[in-house]
Structure formats: structure tokens, C-alpha cells
């Protein structure tokens, strides 16, 4: 991948440089895909949405403001697309794990250790899928994607106070599902 900034690649894209846009896709496709996969609960649906996100982004590039972070803008488009799908389906998303935790196998010399890690992460993915969309998306954005409270507030169109309370409740709900026991009150 090149070292050109997002702003530069976006400007090149606006002038008709499709190679520059390909570079942007390469940078953010994994992030968009896994965000969509976790929010939607479907790997196949996530791939379609990932393509859809970049096409919508390409067509709307004129409306992107340089003061907004490009990946946050992409995830905002992805979130809206996922919510549309979830509303259309009107059902709880299917749990379709891709054994993401298997990536640990290559890095761990201890077979038993990696099996424990893999199991824990698989449990975590399952538990994440069982949360409400509200809790799931905020946990993904904060604890997996690493966005700041303000960035999350902007992306979800809520205030930072709501981010704080929703994140706290989401973490408590996830812990309860993962650990299978009630936390203190």
C-alpha cells in the first residue's frame, strides 16, 4: 500500500483516478467488512455490504468533508446499510462464525493455550451477536475498532453522555453473557 494520505487519495479519486480509489478500498475493506459482519451477523451479507459501502462512498465523495475521518465516514455508511438489512429482515441476525479465532493457531506454540484462546474468542463472538444492535455496535466501535467517545458520538448521531452510559451497559451485558453469571448491582 502507498503512503499517500487519505485526503490525497480522495482528491485524486475526485479527479477520476480509479487507482487511487482502489488504494482506499485496500486500506479500509477489512475494517468495513468485519464491522459489517459483526453488526449483521453474516459473513456473506457483510461482503455485499462492503462493496456497497465503497460504491456509495465513491458516488458521494463530493459530500465528504476533510474534517471528518474517512474510516469513520465509511463505517457510518456501513452501519446505515447494515441497519437497513436488519430492518428488512426483522429478525435476529444468524450467528455465522468464521472461526476468526483460528488465526491464533499460527502464532501460538502451545496447542492447549491456543485452543483455550480460540474457545474464549468464539464465545465472545457468540455473545456479541446476542446483544441488542445498540450495545453491539457501540462495543464494536469502542473496544474493537478503537474509536474515541467523540468519534462514536458523531458516527451514531448521539451525544457523548449517551455513549458513556450505553457503553457501560453494553459491557455489563456482554460480561453477563460471556461469564454466564450476574454481576453485582
Amino acid at each position, binding site marked *: 500500500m502507498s503512503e499517500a494520505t487519505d485526503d490525497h487519495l480522495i482528491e485524486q479519486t*475526485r479527479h477520476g483516478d*480509479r487507482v487511487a*480509489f*482502489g488504494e482506499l*478500498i*485496500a486500506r479500509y*475493506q*477489512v475494517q468495513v*467488512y*468485519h464491522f459489517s459482519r459483526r453488526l449483521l451477523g453474516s459473513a456473506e451479507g457483510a*461482503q455485499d455490504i*462492503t*462493496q456497497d459501502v*465503497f*460504491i456509495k462512498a*465513491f*458516488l458521494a*465523495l*463530493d459530500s465528504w468533508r476533510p474534517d471528518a475521518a474517512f474510516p469513520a465516514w465509511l463505517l457510518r455508511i456501513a452501519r446505515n446499510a447494515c441497519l437497513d438489512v436488519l430492518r428488512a429482515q426483522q429478525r435476529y441476525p444468524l450467528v455465522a462464525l*468464521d472461526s*476468526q*479465532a*483460528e*488465526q*491464533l493457531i499460527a502464532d501460538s506454540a502451545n496447542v492447549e493455550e491456543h485452543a483455550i*484462546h480460540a474457545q*474464549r*474468542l468464539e464465545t*465472545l*463472538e457468540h455473545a456479541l451477536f446476542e446483544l441488542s444492535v445498540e450495545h453491539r455496535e457501540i*462495543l464494536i466501535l*469502542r*473496544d*474493537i*475498532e*478503537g474509536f474515541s*467517545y467523540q468519534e462514536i458520538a458523531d458516527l451514531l448521531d448521539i451525544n457523548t453522555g449517551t455513549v*458513556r*452510559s450505553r*457503553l*457501560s451497559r453494553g*459491557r*455489563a451485558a*456482554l*460480561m453477563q453473557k*460471556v*461469564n454466564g453469571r450476574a*454481576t*453485582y448491582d
Partner: protein
Amino acid sequence: MIEHIEKQWLSEYLDEQLSSSQQRRVQEHLAGCLTCQAYMRELQQLQQDMQMLKTTECAIDVRAQTLAMLADLAPSRRHKRWSSLEYGAAVASVFCGLLIGSWLMPAETAPSFDLAFVQVLGAEPPGFLCSTSAYCYLEPKK
């Protein structure tokens, strides 16, 4: 009965989002409360595990399909916005066109009062106001 720290405070403490005074209060409480310490450890472990999910993400590549789909879209779907200079030039062109047009158009002078009076009545005798003046009193032919 021990009053525990609010879970939301512990969540914000994990993310370093508390004010200095709030941080101190949480730290002081954690020093003496095993229940809150346990909750804090669970929160930290949960966050570490969530971050681990990020590092284990498999790669995908939708570049080729996406760029192919973009190539199929009509070029006119992407409209280049005019710059303010281009807008200004367009407005100036229209204004100049109107100005030049108004100079080239012959000026219409209003007729004098006497001439206007005669024009209303016409130079011809009153009878001539009727297109078939000589026959207008006759009944139409059957």
C-alpha cells in the same frame, strides 16, 4: 453496607474518561473494595479479548469486484462541481449578454400625444373601422 462505585464510572475509568477528582475517588475505592476490583478485572479482560478479535480478523479483498462495478456505472453519475470561479464566469457571461442585447435593441420611443390620438381613431373615416364597412348593415347571405 459498602457503597460501590457506579459501573459506568468503572467503565469510564477503564477508558481514562474521568476527571482527575473522579479518578482519585475510583482509585481510593478500588484500593479497599474487592467486589469493585473483581468487576474492574473483568472489564479489563473483556476489553483485551475484544481487542484480540481485531488482531485475528481474516483478510478479504473486494477491490476488483468493486472497481468493476464502478466501471459499469455511467460516467455522468459523478458530476464535477463547479468551482466558484466557474460560477462567477457563468453569471458574468449571462449579465454581459443581457447588457449587449439591450444596447443592440432599437429604442422604442413613445408616440406624441396628438399622433397617439389620431392612431386610436385612425386616419380613415369612422366607417373604415369596420372591415366590411359598406356592407356591415346588410343581412348575412343565406
